[in-house]
């Protein structure tokens, strides 16, 4: 079984899983906050937030990668900030790949969570408020449990997107084996070298399988949301 892929490919697969996992975990709170603001908020700049969240979906990924390089590179203002405050370096590290994956998966994640929040009757939260529940308790006991399938669906979509991210990643953190060479980058490399095609095909099958499982799971969860709405 381990012969099916070479050691470099296994490394790429594990790296992809690590990158996508941390990208999803770190962006989930922000994704929920953005979805909540878009679903419930009535504030100035709501439309601007909406555009900002969805921009990575339509912008050329190479542009997103370039902007990340400008902002989060070692001499970029945000890059310096993170290095000084948390000791996190993004440039040419796997953490940078995770950041790129998080940004690119963000629109999908926010969309799924937002739909599940919009499916919740806001009147139910109002009822909880009249019963004395604080906003935090309402979020914890009413909103989150009711939006849970959508949050999970959003996380899975974000994860799947992170597994396959290419353009922004290669622009931002380059293609370094063992550090930033994820699944998609590895396929690209294999296609460049003579005789690499069979391995590339196997990796392609792996990524198709991951994407398909993710889509089916998120679809099932989305159905649970709409079912709950009907009850």
């Amino acid at each position, binding site marked *: 079984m381990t012969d099916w892929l070479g050691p470099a490919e296994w490394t790429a697969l594990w790296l992809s899983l690590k990158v996508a996992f941390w990208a999803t975990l770190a962006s989930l709170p922000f994704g929920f906050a953005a979805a909540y603001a878009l679903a419930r908020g009535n504030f100035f700049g709501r439309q601007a937030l909406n555009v900002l969240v969805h921009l990575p979906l339509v912008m050329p990924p190479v542009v997103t990668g370039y902007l990340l390089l400008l902002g989060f590179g070692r001499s970029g203002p945000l890059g310096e900030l993170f290095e000084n405050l948390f000791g996190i370096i993004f440039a040419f590290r796997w953490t940078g790949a995770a950041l790129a994956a998080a940004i690119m998966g963000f629109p999908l994640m926010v969309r799924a969570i937002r739909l599940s929040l919009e499916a919740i009757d806001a009147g139910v939260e109002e009822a909880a*408020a*009249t019963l*004395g529940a604080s906003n935090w308790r309402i979020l914890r006991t009413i909103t989150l449990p*009711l939006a849970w399938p959508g949050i999970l669906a959003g996380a899975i979509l974000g994860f799947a997107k992170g597994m396959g991210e290419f353009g922004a990643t290669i622009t931002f953190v380059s293609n370094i084996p063992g550090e930033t060479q994820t699944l998609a980058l590895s396929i690209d490399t294999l296609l460049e070298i003579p005789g690499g095609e069979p391995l590339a095909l196997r990796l392609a099958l792996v990524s198709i399988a991951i994407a398909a499982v993710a889509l089916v799971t998120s679809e099932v969860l989305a159905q649970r949301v709409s079912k709950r709405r009907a009850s």
Partner: protein
Amino acid sequence: MLKVSVAKSFEGFSLDVDFEVPSGVTAIFGPSGSGKTSIIRAVAGLLACDRAEVSLDGDVLSGLPPQKRNMGYVFQDARLFPHMTVHKNLRYGGSHDEDAVIAVLGLGALLERHPASLSGGEKQRVALGRALMSAPKVLLLDEPLSALDGPRKAEVLPYLEALRDQTSIPILYVSHDMGEVARMASRILVIDQGKVALAGDVQDVLADPAAVPFVGLSAAGAILTGRVVGLADDGLSKIETGAGALWVPGAVGRTGSHVRVRIPAQDVILSRSAPKDMSALNVLSVTIAALEYGKGPGVAVALQAGDARLLARVTKRSCEGMKLKQGDEVFAILKATAIAPSDVS
């Protein structure tokens, strides 16, 4: 004592009301779109207003979020938490008087069920219990029965009445159904286009001919209070009221118990002479206290019957033909079957 002063401008409509609510049930009555629900949403702190002064026994509640107002709110559409059992729903706001609330509202058999499997009437009972168990200082009921059909309404009403009789907190009861108001409330605020058109004791307001245009022609009618004397073999109950004895259909209550009977104004017939050879059972000797001519073909006639008051609606034509005027002594005829069991409580 709950004091409320609320103002808010809507598009093409403005709400501006000032009123006080003592303990017991105060009905907020008015047609749809008159601003009733906006008023209690403002009282609960759920509606931002231009002016929303609310105080309870001197404590100013305005400015507090809904969470801090300690008001139980029952919504028209129940709004139970779909992911929790009935028991968890009930306990969400506290477990004040839990056993008593569950017993009074008949919720014992429902505790482990989820809201999706409850009937409309059961949902509304759970919503009521949930509000009560949070130990509210005021209870706000926003058309709690209007989403229910006739039989379901009849199922929930006795629970509401039991609740009213067992609690001493002020209850605001929003409704557009005069039958419900007459059964539930002791005081009434009639809202018309965002203003308080009439306010006072339910019996006084409903016996006032000037109230007819606001209350609505079919909803107008005075309330008689009386004592059940007994149930006859033919299925009629005799009630001794201040206006005289009244026969009404069905068993309306235990002998000796006190009941209210709503007499719809349009079901009262007036006669100059004592009628004989006719089917109507209830003939009361009354004095005309006032005549109120409306814009249409009808006249609202206020009647004094002993120490009770009645309201009749007759046409201008019969009024002129009979030469009815204030102070005349006439006979009021009420058909027993016009008094529906739901009008007696």
